[in-house]
């Protein structure tokens, strides 16, 4: 069972990563910086529980706050660029963060060993969960409490004026500005929120994996972060969850038996999915179909 629970944990964590990019995408911004915020969350939370021996909850919230602070800082210069330039700028940020942790060595004695980030050697011993007797069920529940909270918050936001503002900026900046929307505030807020969510995801990741190193946070992770909302669709937060289940659950884990052919089939299925469902796996139409199916009404 621990395998399935581990998979459910991973899906939850990657959903948070995808949602951190989803918030930004609502405002029309495409960022590859989410891997950087995820890394900041992972290392910060690890340092707080391992070196400062804080309990997991305050460590996690502090790590998310630190990640969101950096996202806030990145948000301002990022306003000056758009589209592909923003992608390049945020890749640069992610690489900066990755290389910072690649060089970070902060070791403190703990019993007969040293703990803490150890440069290229990675950051081991982030064992808060297992060392405190948490069962796989408890860890899974802990992860999913955050996933559900974040999804609920975003779902609610999407249905509020704030959500309309985010989407208005994403649809047409000029039109949004002309009706009095403060673009700076909206974009920086979205970036900060995305950083906070990625920070939570990173913190949870570090503690479920028990080890992180700079190679965990490469451009590939950043690509996954934006691939989830794109593949899942931006019409709802559930699209990101569906895409994560499809990629992590079905493609990465489900196709493992294919061995060498896995990556080829993986790529073909992604292409097939995007062609068959160009608006996302969970687009507005699918949402309507599901609503009707569960008796919530609604028309096409």
């Amino acid at each position, binding site marked *: 069972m621990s395998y399935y629970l581990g998979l459910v944990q991973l899906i939850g964590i990657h959903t948070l990563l995808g949602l951190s990019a989803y918030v930004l995408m609502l405002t029309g911004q495409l960022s590859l910086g989410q891997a950087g915020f995820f890394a900041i969350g992972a290392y910060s939370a690890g340092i707080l529980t391992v070196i400062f021996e804080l309990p997991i909850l305050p460590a996690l919230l502090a790590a998310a706050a630190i990640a969101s602070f950096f996202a806030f800082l990145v948000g301002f210069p990022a306003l000056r660029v758009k589209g592909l330039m923003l992608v390049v700028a945020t890749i640069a940020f992610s690489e900066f963060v990755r290389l910072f942790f690649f060089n970070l060595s902060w070791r403190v004695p703990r019993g007969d060993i040293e703990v803490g980030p150890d440069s*290229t*050697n990675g950051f081991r011993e982030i064992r808060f969960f297992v060392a405190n007797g948490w069962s796989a069920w408890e860890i899974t529940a802990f992860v999913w409490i955050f996933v559900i909270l974040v999804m609920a918050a975003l779902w609610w936001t999407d249905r509020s004026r704030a959500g309309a503002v985010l989407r208005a900026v994403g649809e047409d900046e000029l039109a949004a500005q002309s009706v009095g929307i403060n673009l700076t505030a909206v974009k920086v807020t979205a970036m900060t929120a995305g950083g906070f969510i990625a920070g939570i995801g990173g913190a949870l990741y570090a503690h479920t994996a028990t080890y992180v190193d700079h190679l965990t946070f490469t451009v590939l992770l950043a690509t996954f972060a934006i691939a989830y909302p794109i593949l899942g669709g931006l019409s709802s937060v559930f699209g990101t969850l569906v895409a994560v289940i499809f990629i992590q659950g079905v493609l990465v884990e489900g196709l493992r038996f294919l061995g060498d052919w896995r990556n080829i089939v993986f790529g073909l299925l992604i292409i097939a999915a995007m062609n068959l469902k160009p608006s996302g796996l969970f687009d507005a139409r699918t949402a309507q179909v599901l609503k009707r199916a569960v008796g919530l009404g609604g028309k096409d």
Partner: protein
Amino acid sequence: MSAVRLSTTALASMAVAALIAFAQPVSAADERTVKIAGWGAKSGPLRSFGVNSEAVLKAAVQSINDSGGVKLGDGTVAQMEFTYYDSACNADQAISVARKVESQTEALIGIGPTCSGAAAAMYGIFQKTVDDESDTGLQFPILTDTAIRPGLAKKSQWTFRNVPNEITMYDELFAWLRAQYPDAKTIYGGTETDQAHSKLTFAIVIVPMAKKHGFEWVGGGIEGVTGKVREGYENVLEVSKSSNWLMADTNFSVQARAFKKSGADMMIVSSHPFTTCGMLKEMKRQRIKPKVLVGLTSSSSAETLKGCSAAAEGMYIPTGFAPITDAAAKVAAAAEANGGSADLHSAAAWENAHIIKQVIESTGIMAKPETLNDDRRKIRDGLETLVKVDGLMGDIGRVQDEGESVKPYVFVQADSGTWKVVHDPR
């Protein structure tokens, strides 16, 4: 049928097909087979690690079954079965496979995950100390091949490794080179700094061991490097920063120029085959010809010879495997027949399968579903009590406290497209 329905059906079919394959059933309860699991990088840039490891493991299991199988605790003789998974040299995937094998299969032990980074991550999810009920880590024995970065197995009492000890090997190598090249005085080198194994071995083992045997870094040595492992580690990386590279680098002209400028008698290229070849080709292009060229253990593989045999000509490397005994030659041939190659990394998979057989037969394993957890525990305990096992090149000593091994080794030199054994200290 509308396009939407068609596409939804198609996607659902793909998902269901994958999930059916994904949910592999646990084997029938009455089968008395000894199941083991292997995993490693079968995709990605380090794919050869997993391919070679699987090929050797396949040959080992076949040889065990051909010679009668494994004798269980009640006298039954069972066949050995193995399943090999792709964990792509990725921490998440290695962890996921470990969890899958532990909870969804009847495998008694795992052999994997080939890459040091993945191993370092994966070992963390195991119970640190046996019988510590407050630690909910996995309780499943692992006997790793390939992943060679120093000091990993002691992370958990459930994790063991059968990999060479680089400190001993380089210590002996430089002692031997000292005798072979009495005129060689100075050294210079570089490493791929984003690969922990390459970097650490270079800075904490290779350079200090060279110093220990009288080779001095050009320009009067490095402050803090005394000849003891780890001492002066930071300074080694500092002085070599203009000659280091990253694993994804494809241009080595600056680093090679630094090598050339150094004019050192001995040059060290501490990296995996992919960048070793890039660096050696650039050195050849710049006509850099040191008296002695030394490489990282991981480069004493077929990949280096396939990639740059001419540029690597003359390079010395210590290795834990060479086909110099009948058993080793047999394994090399069997691995090739299975589409892989036996080298210092993968040959351990053969030894591991035979070590597991030995432990199973000595600890009374029953290989029944109802005894699965007991069997796994017995195998762990059996591995911990091992003092010495048979290896392909001679006896392998076990370091019980740390789960590590002390393997016999030889020194090889690239010679006309092959690795020629130039010194055999066994």
